[in-house]
């Protein structure tokens, strides 16, 4: 149990009367890279947002790094500190500079000194290749740059797990690869990653496992080679044919 970074057992999620996630069992071991895909409305974003309590599940259990996700606020905070998240719309804080975006949570939550946090932030900004933008505001950056800052901001909290919620879906096509490059680098360094994305090239390149969801259920999961070349389920086959048809 303890070697699992994320462990979800028979978890259900409802929006009012709508059954959004049905009896989900889902594990991610430490260092594993998992790509979740599926048609829109299949519940893949909801699943990843349940992991750090941006959405509340109604039944079943979720454990992150051995910490149970329940109504205990300390546990929720602990899990949020350990699981960094990158959003589709970047969600940088527009009233703060890039550097302030990256140092805010480490100083407030991790109690780092300002100098320490800034030094740390510059390291990560260099890693996502935009240290020269540190003193600009988010609105002055391109979408791809903003998303790279968002990744750096999450990394500044030194999380054990990174959750990506369609990180490239809001980007112009020419900016997708700069973000994916950063994510590939992160994967190669051994970060535990759960990534909701339609970038099948990325999935093939870095994923240890690809999960296909439809209609609130996990339909099929397999290593990328097997998943793409020999899908078992009819719905997976249909989905893949639609995606591949456009690539």
């Amino acid at each position, binding site marked *: 149990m303890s070697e699992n970074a994320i462990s979800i057992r028979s978890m259900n999620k409802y929006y009012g009367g709508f059954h959004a996630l049905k009896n989900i069992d889902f594990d991610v071991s430490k260092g594993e890279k998992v790509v979740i895909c599926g048609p829109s409305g299949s519940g893949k974003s909801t699943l990843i947002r349940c992991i750090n309590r941006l959405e509340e599940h109604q039944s079943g259990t979720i454990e992150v790094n051995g910490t149970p996700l329940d109504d205990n606020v300390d546990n929720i905070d602990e899990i*949020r500190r350990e699981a960094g*998240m990158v959003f589709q719309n970047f*969600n940088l*804080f527009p009233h703060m500079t890039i550097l302030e975006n990256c140092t*805010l949570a480490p100083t407030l*939550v991790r109690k780092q000194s300002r100098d320490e946090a800034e030094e740390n932030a510059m390291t990560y900004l260099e890693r996502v290749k935009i240290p020269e933008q540190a003193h600009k505001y988010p*609105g002055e950056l391109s979408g791809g740059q903003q998303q790279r800052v968002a990744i750096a*901001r999450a990394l500044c909290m030194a999380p054990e797990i990174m959750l990506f919620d369609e990180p490239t879906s809001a980007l112009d096509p020419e900016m997708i690869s700069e973000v994916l490059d950063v994510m590939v680098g992160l994967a190669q360094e051994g970060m535990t990653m759960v990534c909701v994305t339609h970038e099948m090239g990325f999935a093939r390149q870095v994923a240890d496992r690809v999960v296909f969801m439809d209609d609130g259920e996990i339909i099929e999961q397999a290593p990328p080679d097997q998943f793409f070349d020999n899908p078992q389920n009819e719905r997976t086959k249909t989905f893949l044919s639609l995606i591949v048809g456009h690539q």
Partner: protein
Amino acid sequence: MSTAASDTTMSYIRKHYFATPLNSAISVLLALFTLWVLWSLFDWAVLKAIWGKGLNEECRAHEHGACWSFVATRWRIVLFGLYPFEEQWRSALACLVMLAVAVLSCMPAFWSAKRLPILWVLGFATFFVLMRGGVFGLTEVTERDWGGLSLTVFIFAAVCLLGMPLAIIFALLRRSELPWIAKTMALVIDVIRSLPLLSIMFTFAIVLPFVLPDWAIGDKLYRVIVGYAIFFACYQAEIIRGGMQALLMGQEEAAKALGMGYWHRIGYIILPQAFRNALPPTINQFVITFKETSLVTIIGFFDILASGRAAAGTADWSFATIEMYLFVGFLFFIFVFCLSRYGAYLERRMAVGSR
């Protein structure tokens, strides 16, 4: 070059003011009318005006010009109201202290959670000691005798300072996740907003003493300030809530995902952005609040408008009401105009952060 420039000016004027005969006629008539109004004003306020101290007899005899002699003679009553004559330097100094505090707190260098409260506590303490006296060898002057500009400034500053934190609390309660808290707060805000300010002031000044225990009554002035602050807070809370609603949904989620707790999210992410969004209506609310301080006259306080009326209330100056209102209006104008310009400066400054 200059002919080209004047050509374009001429063609601009022709295009916009003299396009058709009717258009030209209206332009000429309005221009003449404007000139006539400006000339009459200038003639009355400057050319035929009577300056200098104590010339009320001359003013009475000479009916066609402004009597600035009124201001020159009676300005101390307008500015200080019933405050004892020989102690009025204290009122003036207190007023200047308050203004200095206000100006300082408008400077970005003072925008920190430590400096601002210290500044304002010191400012209020100095104001209070100067105005009320009774210590350091200063004669005691009770709130009953405060008046004029310093009273107006004091009420305004106290209402805003008390009302703003209250407004933030109201706004946060109003969007509480617990429905009964949110709904109760919404009801309270709606009830207070639907009452006239005057009735709230009356209630706090006159009715409350019958209800409250003796130790909680306090001076009438402070009760009125508390009532006004609650009224202010209800309006300002809705302004802040509007600013919060304009926030992108993802902002709070991003802060949550970084492990930031409720107060950190509110203090660093939600409120700073909400105030930016809500800056124009907030400045508007300050302006309205400043001007409505005049309502305290009705419950027997000598704010600047009331002390102005008192200054023009004696038989020898009773003809100078226009000059009195112009003078008081001018003082209001200076305050409100500075406030508006400061608001515009803030908007420009904050626009940098959210480009």
